């Protein structure tokens, strides 16, 4: 058994609040440090915080490796292409008992999955809301309300569950949604409003009030590379609303009546069969002036003072085909192939162009819907085999749908690593990040970055996961290489280990002990009657750090904390019938022993 236990003593007292500045001394010029010392002296009550955070707030949640990113062609958007949710068409969709008109997309759990009705019900929350106009604060009758829900613990690339409801004649709506992060946007024929965010726990009822303001109509024409009009192309302001989509007529023209004027720059997204997705940034001021931002340095913006008119030229679609096989020629049982590229949408901003498919039984695959003018990385994940990555170049000169054949990709047997993370007292550490970085440096290759091709590739050399409730972790699909293993809670690695893996090897003996100077936050959650078992305790510092659940005595334990910054801890009691869970909130240091008292 290989135990990495540091012998550094536990600090007797809380560290000096200026300790972070000592780190700064190592990297910054001396004069800056002197100035900052003066700054700290004037704000001695405040301690510095670090900016980076790790991982979502859910135990057993696998932190996706950096190379796994969200796909642009999300299922919800594909549904939207087929049925644009205009007020005229949204009345055709299924009607829920307490909703006048409801449309769901990307919500497999709600559309009939293997979950039992009781379990399904337990993962739902309720949202009630009111939509009104800014003019006279009148209720917005029959307004469309888009509810996008990202479930807690869902993978990074998972698309939101989309639900479209309509308000009643009093401007009210009510819907059951999945528990998680909710974004609500409402619109009527000629008005729309800013999105409202809400986090809902299972069984919780959340309330919303959405305010609509007059919107700006945006017209234009969609063309192919030869200048011919493209009919049936879908246009949305997709950083604002997913489902508010219009389609081009036979002459390629469109008129979208609802751009949120005077607020923020929004992304205009155009998709059409046979073409890659196009994204542009549009800004419409309240005085009617507008600007279509350039995508690359040297490109001129398009400006106007009348109603915006956009000429949007699409690029041909790229498809990638190939086949997977083992060294014996047999296809893998289960495999996924994903293509990722980045395209400039502003000079210093890149948007993801991606698609993924499940490989067929014979090992063949075909990925469609990509832009042909940017290069893509192709990632292969097959059960029982090592991950595979290769480059698909850009084809900037093609003028129509293009297919590239990558041939047969041979899969190598995987190696895997299994272990447990324990704290300085030998107790398992729950929900802490474990990363593996490939030490070989020959994988990174030069990428083209011509035109709109951002040439960005995530380092596919780093994989990550999080420990489960027993402190254990599994990383599989590894190649037989030299790896560096790191355990990380917040930003800096708490420990590091070098691993040499041989083909087909499964390392199952890793015991990773955090250094004793890594702090352990121990606390309890109480309500008016005493300790609360099963309460969710979320730790935050510039975002979610981790989330754990109290034991039968109402206790929780979070190991591996930084001594140099305060954390926000939020406790939420179990769901209650007819009401929202009780909550408690506190600011703590890693050495604190807080008792959080729940209240309504």
């Amino acid at each position, binding site marked *: 058994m290989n135990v990495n236990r540091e012998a550094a003593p536990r600090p007797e007292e809380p560290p000096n609040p200026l300790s972070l500045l000592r780190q700064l001394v190592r990297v910054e010029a001396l004069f800056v440090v002197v100035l900052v010392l003066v700054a700290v002296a004037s704000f001695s009550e405040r301690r510095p915080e670090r900016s980076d955070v790790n991982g979502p707030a859910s135990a057993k949640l696998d932190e996706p490796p950096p190379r796994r990113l969200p796909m642009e062609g999300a299922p919800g958007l594909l549904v939207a292409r087929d049925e644009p949710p205009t007020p005229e068409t949204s009345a055709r969709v299924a009607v829920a008992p307490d909703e006048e008109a409801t449309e769901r997309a990307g919500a497999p759990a709600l559309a009939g999955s293997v979950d039992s009705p009781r379990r399904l019900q337990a993962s739902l929350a309720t949202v009630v809301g009111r939509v009104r106009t800014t003019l006279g604060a009148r209720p917005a009758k029959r307004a469309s309300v888009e509810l996008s829900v990202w479930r807690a613990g869902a993978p990074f690339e998972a698309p939101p569950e989309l639900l479209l409801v309509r308000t009643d004649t009093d401007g009210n709506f009510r819907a059951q949604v999945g528990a998680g992060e909710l974004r609500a946007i409402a619109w009527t024929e000629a008005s729309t409003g800013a999105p409202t965010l809400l986090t809902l726990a299972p069984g919780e009822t959340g309330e919303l009030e959405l305010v609509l303001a007059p919107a700006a109509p945006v017209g234009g024409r969609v063309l192919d590379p030869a200048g011919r009009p493209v009919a049936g192309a879908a246009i949305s302001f997709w950083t604002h609303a997913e489902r508010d989509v219009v389609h081009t007529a036979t002459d390629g023209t469109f008129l979208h009546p609802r751009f949120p004027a005077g607020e*923020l720059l929004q*992304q205009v997204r155009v998709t059409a069969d046979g073409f890659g997705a196009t994204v542009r940034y549009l800004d419409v001021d309240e005085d009617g002036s507008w600007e279509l931002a350039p995508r690359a340095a040297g490109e001129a913006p398009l400006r106007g003072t009348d109603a915006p008119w956009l000429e949007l030229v699409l690029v041909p679609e790229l498809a990638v085909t190939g086949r997977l096989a083992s060294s014996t020629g047999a296809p893998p049982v289960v495999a996924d192939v994903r293509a990722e590229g980045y395209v400039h949408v502003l*000079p210093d901003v890149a948007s993801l162009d991606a698609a993924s498919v499940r490989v067929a039984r014979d090992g063949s695959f075909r990925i469609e819907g990509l832009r042909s003018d940017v290069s893509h990385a192709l990632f292969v994940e097959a059960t029982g085999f090592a991950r595979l990555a290769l480059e698909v170049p850009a084809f900037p000169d093609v003028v129509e749908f293009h297919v590239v054949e990558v041939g047969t990709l041979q899969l190598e047997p995987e190696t895997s690593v299994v272990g447990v993370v324990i704290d300085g007292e030998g107790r398992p550490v729950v929900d802490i990040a474990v990363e593996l970085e490939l030490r070989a440096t020959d994988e990174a290759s030069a990428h083209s*970055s011509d035109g709109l091709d951002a040439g960005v590739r995530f380092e596919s050399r780093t994989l990550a996961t999080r420990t489960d409730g027993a402190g254990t972790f599994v990383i599989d699909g590894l190649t037989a290489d030299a790896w560096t293993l790191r355990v990380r809670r917040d930003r800096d690695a708490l420990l590091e280990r070098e691993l040499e893996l041989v083909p087909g090897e499964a390392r199952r003996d890793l015991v990773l002990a955090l250094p004793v100077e890594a702090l352990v936050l121990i606390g309890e959650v109480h309500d008016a009657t005493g300790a609360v078992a099963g309460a969710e305790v979320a730790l935050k510092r*510039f975002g979610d750090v981790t989330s754990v659940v109290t034991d039968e005595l109402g206790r929780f334990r979070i190991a591996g904390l930084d001594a140099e910054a305060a954390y926000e801890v939020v406790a939420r009691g179990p769901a209650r019938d007819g009401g929202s869970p009780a909550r408690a909130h506190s600011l703590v240091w890693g050495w604190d022993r807080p008792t959080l008292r729940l209240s309504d």
Partner: protein
Amino acid sequence: MKIIRLIVAIAVIATMGLTTHAEQHQCHNASGCTATTTSNGKPKIVVFRRGDIVNTSSGWIVNPKNGWRKIQTSTQPTEL
């Protein structure tokens, strides 16, 4: 007191200028992220999708509280 506050402000700005080199940040918020830039001398707030990447070398201001995470990619930061 005003002098001290002025020194504090200068110190913070100087520190930010030296610590926020050309970095790439990716939007990790499920419901998107906002970032700020300057256009014609006026600040502009821009909405991004989850997965979008910005390079801070030309003046983009991002805040981790808005869902931005610093990332490592295989390109030089100036290429983005």
